[in-house]
């Protein structure tokens, strides 16, 4: 390692590192297919397959493809606002982003937002505790988000998160997410396996697998209009 690269490592600011992490997580505008599997302490598991469309500064739209019972259920997140369309009752119901997503260990915010910068401010970088890794600490910008503090561990020079720790307001570690199986999608190196553990309940975790992801340049803004969910 040259002196120059050492200087670079120690000169990166928390803001710059957060931007690199956000950019490495997903393209600014994309469409993806994800599979979410909820594992419960009693051994039960249930699987959902969903289509997700996301556009920077606009929001994230999510539609259930399976199981058959849930097909057609839609979610939309815009900023700190969440809506759900339930086809059986033809109603657009507004919910809170803080709540858990469909019984999983992800909150609505975790699953439907691919960038941290909107909700969290970078505070500090720990570059010495783990060799060749950064630990970036974030704090919540407002009380409307589910966690008060987040710690992200990334490989130096790669910026793809390997581990994310989520803390409550009292500083208690609430959830732990591992990210693995990095694959190349349209030039983006993105983890395709995410395991979110609920640390308050033993053997309770949720796995999300990314089946496909394509960068989409032209996503119409109407997709992120809450009134459009009824279409």
């Amino acid at each position, binding site marked *: 390692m040259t002196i120059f690269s050492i200087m670079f490592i120690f000169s990166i600011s928390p803001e710059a590192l957060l931007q690199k992490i956000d950019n490495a997580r997903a393209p600014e505008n994309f469409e993806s297919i994800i599979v979410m599997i909820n594992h419960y302490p009693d051994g039960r598991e249930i699987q959902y397959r969903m289509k997700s469309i996301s556009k920077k500064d606009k929001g994230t739209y999510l539609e259930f493809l399976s199981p058959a*019972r849930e097909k057609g259920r839609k979610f939309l997140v815009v900023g700190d606002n969440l809506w759900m369309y339930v086809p059986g*009752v033809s109603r657009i119901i*507004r919910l809170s982003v803080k709540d858990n997503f469909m019984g999983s260990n992800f909150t609505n915010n975790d699953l439907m937002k691919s960038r941290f910068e909107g909700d969290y401010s970078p505070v500090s970088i720990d570059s010495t505790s783990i060799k060749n890794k950064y630990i970036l600490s974030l704090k919540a910008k407002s009380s409307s988000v589910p966690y008060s503090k987040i710690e992200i561990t990334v490989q130096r020079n790669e910026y793809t998160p390997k581990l994310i720790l989520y803390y409550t307001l009292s500083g208690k570690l609430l959830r732990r997410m591992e990210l693995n199986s990095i694959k190349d999608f349209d030039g983006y190196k993105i983890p395709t396996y995410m395991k979110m553990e609920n640390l308050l309940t033993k053997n309770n975790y949720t796995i999300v697998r990314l089946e496909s992801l394509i960068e989409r340049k032209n996503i119409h803004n*109407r997709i992120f209009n809450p009134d459009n969910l009824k279409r």
Partner: protein
Amino acid sequence: MIFLLFSISVNGYSAYYIGITDSLFFNRIEVKLKSEVKSQSGDFLGDIRTGYNYPGGTYISIDRASFKIYVKDFQFLLGKDRIPWGFGYFYSPGDLVNPEYSPLDPERIEEGVEMIDISFRRSQSTSLEFILLPAQKAHRIIVPDDIRIGGRIYVFTNSFESYLSLMKKNEYILSTGIRKDYLGYILYGELKSTINALSRFSSLMGINKTLYNNFYVNLEYFHNGDGITTTEYDSLQNIGRLHINPGYTGKNYLYTGLSYSRDEGFGYGFYSIYSIDWESFISVASITYTGIKDATFYLYGIYASNDREFGDLGFRKSLVINVKFFF
């Protein structure tokens, strides 16, 4: 090649219901097919239900059959579809398009409304909509509608949602609504008024909240400007103008919806409508089980009070078992 860029999907359910209302047994077999053809420039959506009721016989209902075309920021819709115009869950006086939700006839919310609808959505914050509704079939609504024409503007800004709607049928009707997430509590309100010398106001205030991730609570207070008092009802009864529309006859109502649900296993629900000035209520308690893949089991118990309005329904108690297999 561009014509090949579409997707087709078919899904639905088959269902069996068996129940008892006071001392009368009934059962029903039903199949619902939902088809979608989607493309970048247009969609077709079709929902059809058919089944056999005992007593009653066979039935068929085309709940939705609509063609949509997208041209730039415009969406043109022709056919039968469901497009909610209000924010309310059970009561929604601001929804000038759809029939009122009935506590005893859930199919009324399954079935769409025939329409020509043009909507304009350029941004994520504003929608403009114009609609033409031909006279709807009388069996779906309590009072048959004439042709209606109207418009609606929806605005979402700084976490506030609001809308303003105007509809012309025999008279002009104006409605407005607002909805906001306040610290995880979803608050909403609606107001509807006829525009004439004898303006009749209806209003709704509602709140919903998810507690501990699985409990969902929904409360609504509905003031029905078209409702009557028990004294007025007695006068009408004396001159032979009897007409009870359960849940919409009185002036003031309270809707309570409580549910506990998980993505798999048992779920529980309790729903109630209380007619405040008539002192009458109807309650539904439900147990659902979703532990078997693609199947849902339901057990409903319905109880109507002995007082007027819900007491005039013709039954007090009902128990229904329903199983649905989704495909």
